[in-house]
């Protein structure tokens, strides 16, 4: 009722902002999302930190003050100061520079996992939701199997089999984080399956793949993006945990979790070895959580 009224209100002033092409219409709606995103201060903070991570990773060589891997034993375990903003580690490497280069590794892991997990989850979820029956049963039982292992344990087992390394860590994390996405996409698809607009394209003779790709996936996309953003925090933590256990990125790569792991031996005397990468991990995962929350408020069709 209230919604109806507001729609009649907008009807009156519509003519001035009528888009005249698909591109313009798309631009207008994405501009709206961006505007809403910036309006909420928490979301804005999350967005800024995420952007900062990307900028730092992209311009690492220019931002870093020292080489992240060159050792200088004479300079080991320096406290934070003018020469080394965040101090140095046990090999005399500049922690600030290692943090900056570590952003690259973090971003690499997030990006790779997301690129693997998003499409797999979407594909399995929408296909099993749309077709139902045997396909659904098979896909969902496989998902159940993956979901029933604690993710870190599954990742550990996988790395134990393949050997430690950054790429293996990425695959291991991806392996454990697609099932929630698939379930989410399936639930969305089930609710869309009988929607009139899906039936309408079926009645136009559209093929199943066309219906899934062009009509169902776009509707699932926003909730999947929200979920992926929220997952990024978990991915960062899992990657750090694997690094901490020595199973992720290998020395001398400046991975944040590995930095904490090696730093903990000197933790009591040199707090900065652990606190600085720890704070970075916390900040970035918090930022992605905030961003995900904000995106949910804006994109989720149910909250409109």
């Amino acid at each position: 009722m209230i919604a109806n009224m507001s729609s009649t209100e907008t009807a009156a002033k519509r003519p001035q902002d009528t888009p005249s092409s698909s591109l313009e219409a798309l631009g207008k709606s994405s501009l709206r999302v961006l505007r809403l995103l910036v309006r909420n201060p928490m979301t804005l903070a999350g967005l800024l930190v995420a952007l900062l991570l990307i900028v730092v990773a992209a311009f690492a060589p220019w931002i870093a003050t020292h080489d992240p891997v060159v050792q200088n034993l004479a300079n080991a375990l320096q406290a934070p100061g003018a020469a080394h903003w965040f101090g140095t580690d046990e090999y005399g490497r500049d922690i600030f520079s290692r943090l900056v280069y570590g952003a690259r590794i973090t971003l690499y892991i997030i990006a790779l996992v997301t690129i693997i997990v998003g499409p797999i989850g979407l594909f399995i979820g929408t296909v099993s939701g749309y077709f139902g029956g045997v396909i659904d049963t098979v896909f969902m039982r496989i998902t159940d199997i993956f979901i029933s292992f604690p993710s870190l344990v599954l990742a550990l087992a996988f790395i134990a089999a393949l050997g430690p390394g950054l790429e293996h860590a990425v695959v291991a994390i991806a392996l454990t984080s697609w099932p929630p996405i698939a379930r989410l996409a399936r639930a969305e698809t089930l609710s869309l399956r009988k929607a009139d607009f899906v039936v309408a394209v079926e009645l136009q003779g559209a093929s199943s793949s066309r219906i899934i790709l062009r009509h169902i996936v776009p509707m699932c996309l926003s909730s999947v993006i929200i979920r992926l953003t929220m997952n990024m925090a978990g991915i960062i933590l899992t990657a750090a945990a694997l690094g901490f256990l020595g199973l992720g990125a290998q020395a001398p790569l400046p991975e944040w979790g590995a930095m904490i792991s090696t730093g903990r031996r000197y933790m009591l005397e040199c707090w900065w070895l652990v606190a600085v990468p720890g704070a970075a991990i916390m900040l970035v995962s918090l930022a992605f959580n905030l961003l995900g929350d904000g995106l949910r408020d804006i994109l989720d069709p149910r909250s409109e």
Partner: protein
Amino acid sequence: MSTPKIHVDSLNVRFVNGKKVMHAVRDVSFSLGQEKLAIVGESGSGKSTVGRSLLKLHPASAQITAKAMQFGDVDLLGAGERAMQKIRGQRISMIMQDPKYSLNPVVKVGEQIAEAYLAHHKASRSEARERVLLMLEKVHIRDPKRVYNLYPHEVSGGMGQRIMIAMMVITNPEVIIADEPTSALDVSVRQQVLSVLEELVVEQQMGLIFVSHDLNLVRNYCDRVLVMYAGRVVESLAACDLQYAEHPYTRGLLAALPSMDNRRARLPVLQRDPLWLTC
């Protein structure tokens, strides 16, 4: 007409959303006696908003102003949340469109009616049960004892709506607000629900505010009709005089109805006059 049960003078409702203000109801005045008053209009005309604002069932973003909003001896405008809680359900009841959404799905319907009774009356469980069975009989439910123990999903739409009526009337309210009570129902059960409602209204001397979009239904069922358009009452007249309505909007709505007995090649289309928004 006896002293009015409800008297409303220039009611205005605005929904404030950030900088946007939506003026949903503009200067609506009416009084309700012991009668069946219909508020009709199309979606977005503000008809439901009027019904709800009497019970102050609005989100915090709504601003309600009026010169007067009197219910018996209570000034609804100045009444606080606590005073309103005493009025809602006990003195003014509301029946919604779809019983499916108004009944708690995991509680037996009989218990829900008893709950409504106990909320406003001091009585033992067994007394309440007796009252409920009596009430179910009054709304023409054949086997009250069986229906008492049913869950909402086990009853049909028509029966669900009669159960809602029983629940709303059991507290002996002075006024009932019915918001499209039959538009989710089939025609064959619609009749039944309406006559049950009518019986109770007459028997317990209640006032009925009947919010509807259906002019034909209203003209035969109610005593008086308020026609709303874009938040204003454009016409107020006795239901039996509806065919002599003067306002072009009312006339246009009546003419636009397809009818079995008056088949026309084309239906006249309502021409909206911007003047209606200002007069």
